[in-house]
């Protein structure tokens, strides 16, 4: 807006909307870490810094 590049702000707004739609349409955005894996990691850390 400072440089009065309104074509850029219009293009950016469209880009933002497109990114939000793509990101919000994705179902693959989280996963479960099994308790066994957490225990393994924690014990590894405990051994390393004990």
């Amino acid at each position: 807006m400072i440089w009065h590049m309104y074509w850029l702000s219009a293009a950016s707004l469209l880009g933002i909307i497109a990114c939000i739609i793509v990101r919000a349409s994705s179902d693959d955005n989280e996963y479960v870490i099994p308790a066994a894996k957490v225990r393994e990691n924690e014990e590894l850390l405990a051994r390393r810094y004990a």
Partner: protein
Amino acid sequence: MSQTQAARAEADAKTIFGFWVYLMTDCVLFASLFATFAVLRSSTFGGPSGSTLFSLPFVLAETLILLTSSFTCGLGILSARLGQKDRVLIFFGLTFILGLAFLGLELHEFSHLYNEGNSWRRSGFLSAFFTLVGTHGMHITAGLMWMAVMMRKVSLKGLSESSIKRLTMLSLFWHFLDIVWIFIFTVVYLLGAAS
């Protein structure tokens, strides 16, 4: 239920709760805009006030269209829970058309005001009016885009669980906008025409 499914259900419940929190922050936004409007409503700076500008039959038509769209949205979400894909598309399609009609009427009103020289630059009252009603209109626009994306998703991929979750949030959003509009109708138009 397996561990993954249980985690899934818990995550979904959190998502819906998060959406409620968002709606409440939106409520705060509208509350401040309403407060601004209430303070500025008589600051017409020698210009026209609400009673000369607003046509109540026109606004009543807008209100009825939006209320009907909320009704069809409710029918749509009911069909989604029953897994009736075709009905979901029909009812959300109707909601979309009604929302678009509402937006068209609102833009018509705005351009009419603007062309008559009663833009947001005219007075504090009109600045507050355009900010409040325009913010509502922006929300409606966003809701329509969301609805279009969801209808495309449902028609291509069917009614998945994640789609039903998203449709639930969309309907929450749409009903919320309807409630906000009821307040705009009362505070801006009815009280404006009465004073």
